[in-house]
């Protein structure tokens, strides 16, 4: 796989977090960060709130990236990309008190390396009142998040499709749910590109209904969890109708299709002119909950693997990141009460989900979740979706 660097411009400092208005006189001493291809050693795990300065030294073999993640380890509070080997650069941003995570990203893609907790103590930094600046920061942060998720999706899909194409079905099955997580967290973004989501994530019944060639995750899923005679598709038709296990050649084709489709997604969101609007972010949060309410609660999404709860949890995480990205704006518009209520319902839904497992360790297969339990999950989704549906108006009106 060819992974293209995000941006060719060197040392393009993204004005993330509150970095845009940082004065050139950091209060504390710079914190050295020693970066190699597989380490990311931050010399201090704490700092006083306010302006925090890092000194980043890349002694590895290729371009790297330094990230500050929010407590959810997903939302990107700040990042410094395109750290050239042999270089030492300063990176400054403003941080409020709280728990963060530091990490590096070798070649700017894949899973965060050297993820470490970083605590900021002290008084809150005076909130920014410039609305446009808050919006710019939210957009920058969310674009970085989309890129980081697609950046993790690429190698995950590569490993998954490789196992599938090689007929290593046990391995492929074990990777199916965890690979989809990166996609499910940002699904509304992929859907915005029109024909990509159908290729990557359509279920058989959807592809059939729209007359599309059926490719992507769910095509592979059915090969990995092949239906027995007499089993039915989610629309009640025979599972064997117009379907047969893929031949090795077909598997190679579906693997290549999915690989190139997620590469295309990555390229699109990595383009320099790629951006999102504030409404895209907040409506994305709402859309992710709709995904859960429509597809996951019914168990139709992962009809053969029954890994619906992993998708469910990833959708919820994605919605919470989008929500977290715009909360400062909502609060600045006097919507603290709405923000609190949404957060309360996120917490409640996540606590409910935690009873069934976790994204890291896997969830109870959805066919083992009783109707009463599905009802309870559905109530939790409704409880969150109702206040969340007012988020766009709260940040834009």
């Amino acid at each position, binding site marked *: 796989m060819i992974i293209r660097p995000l941006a060719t411009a060197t040392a393009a400092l993204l004005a993330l977090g509150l970095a845009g208005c940082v004065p050139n006189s950091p209060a504390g001493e710079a914190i050295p960060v020693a970066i190699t291809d597989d380490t990311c050693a931050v010399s201090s795990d704490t700092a006083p709130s306010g302006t925090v300065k890092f000194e980043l030294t890349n002694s590895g073999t290729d371009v790297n990236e330094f990230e500050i993640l929010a407590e959810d380890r997903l939302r990107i509070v700040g990042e410094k990309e395109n750290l050239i080997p042999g270089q030492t650069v300063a990176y400054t941003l403003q941080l409020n008190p709280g728990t963060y995570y530091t990490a590096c990203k070798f070649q700017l893609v894949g899973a965060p390396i050297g993820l470490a907790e970083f605590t900021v103590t002290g008084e809150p930094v005076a909130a920014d009142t410039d609305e446009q600046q808050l919006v710019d920061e939210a957009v920058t942060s969310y674009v970085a998040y989309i890129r980081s998720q697609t950046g993790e999706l690429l190698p995950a899909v590569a490993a998954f499709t490789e196992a599938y194409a090689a007929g290593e079905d046990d391995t492929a099955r074990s990777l199916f749910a965890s690979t989809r997580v990166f996609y499910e967290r940002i699904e509304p973004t992929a859907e915005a590109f029109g024909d990509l989501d159908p290729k990557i994530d359509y279920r058989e019944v959807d592809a059939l209904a729209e007359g599309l060639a059926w490719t992507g995750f769910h095509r592979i899923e059915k090969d990995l969890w092949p239906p027995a005679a007499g089993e039915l598709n989610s629309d009640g038709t025979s599972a064997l109708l117009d379907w047969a296990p893929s031949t090795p050649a077909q598997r190679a084709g579906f693997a290549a299709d999915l690989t190139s489709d997620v590469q295309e997604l990555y390229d699109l969101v990595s383009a320099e002119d790629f951006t999102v609007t504030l409404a895209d972010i907040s409506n994305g949060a709402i859309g992710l909950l709709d995904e859960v309410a429509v597809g996951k609660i019914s168990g139709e999404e992962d009809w053969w693997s029954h890994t619906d709860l992993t998708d469910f949890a990833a959708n919820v995480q994605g919605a919470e990141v989008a929500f977290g990205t715009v909360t400062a704006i909502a609060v600045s518009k006097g919507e603290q009460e709405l923000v609190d209520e949404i957060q309360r319902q996120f917490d409640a839904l996540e606590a409910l989900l935690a009873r069934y497992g976790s994204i890291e360790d896997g969830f109870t297969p959805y066919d083992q979740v009783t109707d009463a339990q599905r009802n309870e999950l559905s109530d939790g989704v409704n409880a969150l979706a109702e206040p969340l549906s*007012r988020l766009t108006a709260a940040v834009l009106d």
Partner: protein
Amino acid sequence: MTHEAGRGLSRRGLLGLVGAGAAGLAVGGTGGAVIANGVAGIGTSGAAASYPFFGEHQSGIVTAAQDRLHFAAFDLAASATADDLRELLADWTFAAARMTRGLEVTEDGAVGGSPLAPPDDTGEALGLPAAGLTITFGFGPSLFDDRFGLAARRPAALEPLPRFSGDALDPARSGGDLCIQACADDPQVAVHAIRNLSRIAFGRAAIRWSQLGFGRTSSTTTSQVTPRNLFGFKDGTANIKAEEPDAVAGHVWASASDGTAWMAGGTYLVARKIRMVIESWDRTRLEEQQRVIGRDKGEGAPLSGGTEFTALELDKPDDDGTPRIAADAHVRLAHPTVNGGARLLRRGYNYVDGDDALGRLDAGLFFLSFQRDPAQFVTVQRSLAGHDALNEYIKHVGSAIFAVPPGAPAEGASIGDPLFG
């Protein structure tokens, strides 16, 4: 938690409704009066097309029975607190008071709000009159368990109903922490009410079960003709009528002297989903149908003679000396004289929920009765359950009991205020 009068829905009910409070206070103001005045004569409940929400008693009890029903039982969320319950009742009161006036659930309503936000009101009742809508709230026995600190407030009379002979109850269609009865002469208006009230409840309470009813099976005033149930017989001829103040006072409204001060002016609601074995009934010869009921099918007159409203003569024999109204006839076993004088205010509806797996109509009677003491219902139902000839053609499949608190006296008060003291 106190709910500021006129503030409108709480943040959690629907979020931040500027001006909703003012509109809520403007009874008969913009919109409200126009709507209420334009509807006289619509529907067949035979009375005003708009009923006041506020008052000593809740509406929808002695109110002339409307044509349509949407009934819903709710369970509180696992995370709900006593404050959540109070806030929910305040929100429901606010929305119900508006909808019963023919207004949208908030001032912004279905189309007046931000285009960026989902509308406050779902909109399917836009342009429709109040259609005689009444919204009646009740509290189930489970509300008084240890969750909300209300155990000491439970009326002694509010016990789960005992098991009756022949019951085939589905727990999923029975019980509930709260209930809402929405009645209207237009089904869309009743459904709109339940839909919006359940939306307001999301996160605090969720529907446990609900029931649509399409034809009233009782008259609650003498001005209404007696309707027929799905057996084709007139039903509710001997019902308590609004025009019988002594009967209403004695048999329907609870009083402080009954033992629970906060229930004064309230009543108890029993809901029974009674499936009818329509196909068997329809194959039964007319004389047998009439013998089972104890009335003639055309007129509704008792088999002891006379016309519809003639009193039953339970002992009157026919030529061979047996009582004209059989020992196991429905009207005999339901009659106050064999039940220690117990009377009920019945307000049930016919229902058809499509069909069952055998291709039979899933139809019957959604029985609703209001009584001062649930013991009145228990007495009558014990009499019926053991011996009623009708039992061959019916099956009780759902059951619930609720304490219906008194009305909210005026704007600013909420349903259930007296419960919280």
